[in-house]
């Protein structure tokens, strides 16, 4: 069956009519179609036959027939990998757990992961998480020993076998008192804390996940498994996650988890709180609206007398501990399991608990008058001015940071001046070297507190990023991260912040895996944010994320982040240059999709206002902001409004930027485009020459950027009829582009078409023909984008120079069968129709017009339908009004920018003798 979509849709319509009618109507319809298109009729018949056929699968209930395996998939004695199954221990939401023997005959727990996530995704995640999870060694954690994929591709985990009972059953069976229960809980908290120190969040803490073995040791299971199967990401919550709470066990999930917000160590604390509550009072926490009912009170009302007896012990301190752990606002809870663990110890030892104290921790306690400390402070200062330099920064922001780097250099020179006494200033080593040296000195100082060392490493890393020394930066960040656990009062978010920086650096080192880098960055930022990262840091990271998401085509995410960013900046640094940067990023995010452009315009205008206010009218920032407004207005189509902004941007830029700055080129280019849109007769050659000169200087004489600018220069020369210059420039562009991007790139094809136009005007048809593809050339199937129809355009250009009726027909046939880019193909077909008319090949013209008409939407605003109508009238009717023809010529010229062909055609038609 012909898989052409348009055809299939047609068949579907006919099928609907046929199935809905009586048998007589059906055969009448078939006969009619058979008359017009026998193949179609045959296909319709086949479909009708398929509709009538009995099909037990389609007509039945697949659930009944296939019995999706809800029972166990294996039996005792089965081998999975090197393990042999002994007996089923249980089934849970995530799959079956079997007792198995390894090759040495030792008991292990084998957990088959049943998830609908594709095996590829799951095994990839397992691979990534495995190393971290396997490092979790703690007496209260059931260790992950191994993982693998079975022969049929089922992922499994090998976990230390715990011969014991689930927590609540064990507590009941052992009949232990409140102190005993708290001691068990403390052990569990310690386990979670150990994992959190390794940056692992459990996410699915519940009593069923704690087994108590025969020696009374509680062991926590399923670490990080929830994360493997889960997919919470920053800004990615959907209605379903919202509805289902994004957690595998909603009852134990923290409120923010249920809302689909990012998970943090505080979320684990919540779950621990629920478990503790249940352990003590045998019920889950009860709320009255937002307020927690005091656990001691709940105990008093229990039906079980042994629970009631506990109420007195619970009153007071344990109530307070539970209340803090179960706060709905994560910021009010214990920030991590460690602090909850400490609290429980305090209770056990009869110490006063700190449940009322605030949870603020500080990163570095400054040590007075210590040289290491003062270097740390100095570098800390520098680091904060250098800021969070992300790899995806737009040149605008990076430029400002680069200015700061100069400041850094001189600061360091001052700082280290007394290290190298007597050395003349211009013999001082570079910033990087100074830093390395200074850092090594400081690190070697054994008295240095880990906090100060951390601060140094981070500063070094950031400056290495600024210098684009990615591998070195990665080493520094990793070293910093390794130090983090040593710092007992580190702020919770620092770990995630370092992860974010590592994600950024990793993308530079592995540019092929872009998407993964963005995801990693996003989740690290989310984590840090959940753990209390400050606004300042968040602002920088959000800007980075927006740029990355726009690059990855995630418009929705980018816009949501832009909104957040603006709110943050308005709160943190309103009216500052950071707000300008933020607004610029918002413009980028909002320009991406059509319907959001009004907001983009609003943001761009505001950025310009701010820039003028902060920097004055004659500043590069203001020029750039002005250009942004012009750009947004141009995309919107309001050229008249765009022009003054663009003119202003250009004139300021010429004065404010150094002579050969790439930004200046960009601004001038924008001006050239807008001028042409505003007045097609404008002469933009001087502008393009300026642009070209800058790009040659910055990127190289034969670079892609320069060649592309050269091609545009050629078009401006064509517009002003300087054909021999145009031909020269175009030919140079053609050869450079062919070498830089190859013969299938749209830029190359464009350049060829400009060259052909210029050469034709010069009468150098032979040279033009040499550049054009052969009549029957076809673009390869993989080429689907703009290259495709540009290629065909060049074939048409050949047919213009060397008419060939057969080839013309064939080309039209090929185009009629194209399923890509309908509007571009339509435009091309109209052009070919005009050419066919000129060559008196009226049948071909009609065919081309048909091909065009099927692709022009009824509400198309680009006047294609008008041109089509005019051309049809000419083909089928005897006389065409000259005024109409002139109008058509102008439309064609304006639309295609190729006034010469259109002019020639129309002139021939206009001035040829009419019958």
């Amino acid at each position, binding site marked *: *069956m012909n*898989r052409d*979509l348009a055809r*299939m*849709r047609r068949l*579907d319509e006919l*099928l*609907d009519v046929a*199935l*809905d009618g009586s048998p007589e109507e059906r055969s009448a319809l078939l006969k009619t179609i058979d008359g017009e298109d026998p193949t179609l009729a045959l296909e319709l018949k*086949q*479909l*009708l036959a*398929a*509709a009538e*056929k009995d*099909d037990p*699968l*389609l007509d039945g*209930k*697949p*659930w*009944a*027939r*296939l*019995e*999706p*395996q*809800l*029972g166990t*998939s294996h039996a005792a004695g089965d081998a999975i990998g090197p393990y042999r199954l002994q007996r089923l221990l249980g*089934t849970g*939401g*995530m799959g079956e757990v079997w007792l198995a023997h390894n090759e040495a005959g030792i008991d292990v727990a084998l957990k088959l992961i*049943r*998830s*609908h*996530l594709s095996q590829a*995704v799951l095994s990839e995640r397992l691979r990534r998480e495995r190393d971290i999870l396997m490092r979790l060694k703690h007496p209260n954690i059931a260790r992950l020993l191994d993982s693998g994929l079975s*022969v*049929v*591709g*089922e992922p499994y985990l090998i976990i230390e076998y715990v011969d014991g009972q689930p927590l609540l059953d064990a507590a009941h069976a052992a009949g232990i008192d409140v102190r005993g229960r708290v001691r068990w809980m403390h052990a569990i908290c310690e386990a979670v804390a150990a994992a959190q120190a390794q940056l692992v969040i459990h996410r699915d803490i519940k009593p069923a996940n704690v087994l108590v073995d025969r020696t009374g040791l509680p062991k926590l299971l399923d670490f990080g498994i929830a994360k493997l*199967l*889960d*997919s919470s990401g920053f800004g*990615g919550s*959907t*209605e*379903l*996650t*919202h*509805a*289902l*709470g994004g*957690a*595998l066990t*909603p*009852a134990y999930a923290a409120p923010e988890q*249920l809302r689909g917000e990012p998970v943090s160590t505080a979320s684990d604390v919540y779950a621990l709180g629920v478990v503790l509550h249940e352990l003590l009072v045998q019920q889950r926490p009860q709320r009255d609206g937002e307020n927690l009912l005091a656990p001691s009170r709940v105990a008093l009302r229990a039906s079980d007398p042994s629970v009631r007896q506990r109420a007195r012990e619970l009153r007071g301190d344990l109530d307070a501990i539970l209340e803090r752990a179960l706060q709905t606002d994560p910021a009010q809870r214990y920030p991590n399991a460690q602090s909850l663990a400490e609290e429980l110890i305090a209770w056990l030892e009869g110490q006063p608990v700190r449940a009322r104290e605030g949870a603020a921790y500080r990163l570095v306690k400054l040590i007075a008058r210590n040289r290491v400390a003062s270097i740390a402070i100095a570098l800390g200062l520098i680091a904060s001015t250098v800021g969070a330099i992300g790899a995806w920064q737009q040149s605008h922001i990076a430029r400002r940071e680069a200015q700061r780097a100069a400041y850094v250099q001189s600061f360091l020179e001052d700082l280290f001046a007394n290290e190298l006494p007597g050395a003349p200033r211009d013999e001082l080593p570079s910033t990087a070297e100074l830093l390395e040296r200074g850092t090594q000195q400081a690190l070697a100082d054994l008295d240095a507190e880990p906090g100060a060392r951390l601060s140094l490493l981070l500063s070094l890393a950031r400056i290495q990023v600024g210098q684009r020394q990615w591998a070195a930066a990665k080493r520094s960040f990793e070293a910093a991260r390794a130090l983090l656990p040593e710092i007992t009062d580190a702020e919770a978010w620092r770990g995630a912040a370092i992860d974010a920086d590592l994600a950024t650096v990793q993308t530079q080192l592995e540019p092929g895996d872009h998407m993964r880098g963005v995801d990693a960055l996003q989740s690290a930022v989310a984590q840090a944010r959940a753990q209390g990262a400050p606004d300042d840091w968040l602002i920088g990271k959000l800007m980075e994320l927006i740029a990355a998401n726009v690059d990855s085509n995630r418009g929705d995410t980018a816009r949501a982040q832009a909104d957040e960013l603006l709110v943050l900046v308005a709160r943190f640094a309103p009216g500052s240059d950071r707000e300008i940067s933020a607004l610029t990023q918002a413009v980028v995010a909002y320009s991406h999709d059509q319907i959001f452009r009004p907001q983009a315009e609003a943001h761009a205008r505001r950025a310009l206002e701010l820039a003028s206010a902060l920097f004055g009218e004659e500043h590069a920032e203001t020029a750039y902001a002005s250009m942004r407004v012009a750009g947004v207005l141009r995309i919107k189509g309001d050229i008249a409004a765009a022009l003054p902004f663009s003119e202003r941007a250009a004139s300021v830029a010429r004065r404010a930027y150094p002579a050969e700055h790439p930004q200046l080129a960009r601004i001038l280019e924008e001006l050239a485009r807008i001028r042409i849109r505003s007045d097609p007769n404008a002469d933009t050659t001087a502008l393009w020459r300026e642009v070209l000169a800058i790009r040659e200087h910055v990127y190289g004489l034969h670079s892609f950027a320069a060649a592309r600018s050269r091609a545009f220069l050629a078009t401006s020369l064509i517009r002003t009829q300087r054909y021999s210059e145009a031909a020269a420039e175009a030919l140079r562009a053609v050869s450079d582009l062919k070498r830089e991007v190859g013969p299938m790139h749209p830029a190359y094809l464009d350049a060829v078409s400009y060259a052909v136009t210029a050469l034709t005007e010069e009468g150098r048809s032979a040279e033009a023909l040499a550049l054009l593809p052969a009549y029957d050339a076809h673009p390869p199937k993989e080429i689907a984008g703009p290259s495709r129809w540009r290629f065909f355009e060049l074939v048409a250009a050949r047919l213009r120079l060397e008419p060939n009726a057969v080839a013309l027909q064939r080309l039209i046939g090929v185009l009629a069968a194209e399923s890509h880019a309908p509007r571009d193909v339509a435009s091309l077909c109209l052009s070919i129709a005009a050419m066919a008319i000129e060559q008196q090949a009226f049948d071909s013209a009609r065919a081309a017009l048909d091909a065009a008409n099927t692709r022009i939407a009824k509400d198309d605003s680009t006047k294609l339908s008008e041109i089509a109508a005019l051309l049809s009238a000419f083909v089928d009717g005897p006389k065409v009004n000259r005024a109409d023809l002139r109008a058509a010529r102008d439309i064609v010229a304006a639309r295609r920018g190729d006034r010469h062909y259109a002019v020639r055609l129309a002139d021939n038609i206009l001035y040829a003798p009419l019958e």
Partner: protein
Amino acid sequence: MSFFETDPETLAPLITELRALARSARRRLPHGETLATTALVNEVYLKLSRERSAVAVDRRHFFALAARAMREILIDDARRRSARHAASTNEDDNIPLAPELDAERLVDIDQTLKALADIQPRLAEVVMCRFFAGYTEEETADILGVDVRTVQRDWKRARAWLGELTGTR
């Protein structure tokens, strides 16, 4: 609403719930009776609404998502069966069991859904609801926001297309 636009990973919790419930429902079923999938989805829906009393869950939307989840479960199992069958080394047994054949065909049908959606999106949606999820004509009409007659016509056509595009082995 387009059935193909949801990130399948967000269905994870729903699928887990459905499986768990289906398992316990299956145990309670008298032998020979088939699982009433609509009732299953309904139970999950009710459970959700109880636990998430603060947030109203849109019933229609939920059922649509459940249809997707059911499809995922079925296809996952079908693939597993096919893979296991392909991996079996018993060379004497050349005749695959009917369920394995059906499993392969099911995977085939699933892959054809995209083509169906290209022809007309509702065709694929009706297949998801009527076939994969096992909803009745009325339930399907409600979820998709059309009348029953339209569902019937769509199903007839979808069936014809599926028969033609996937064929029998």
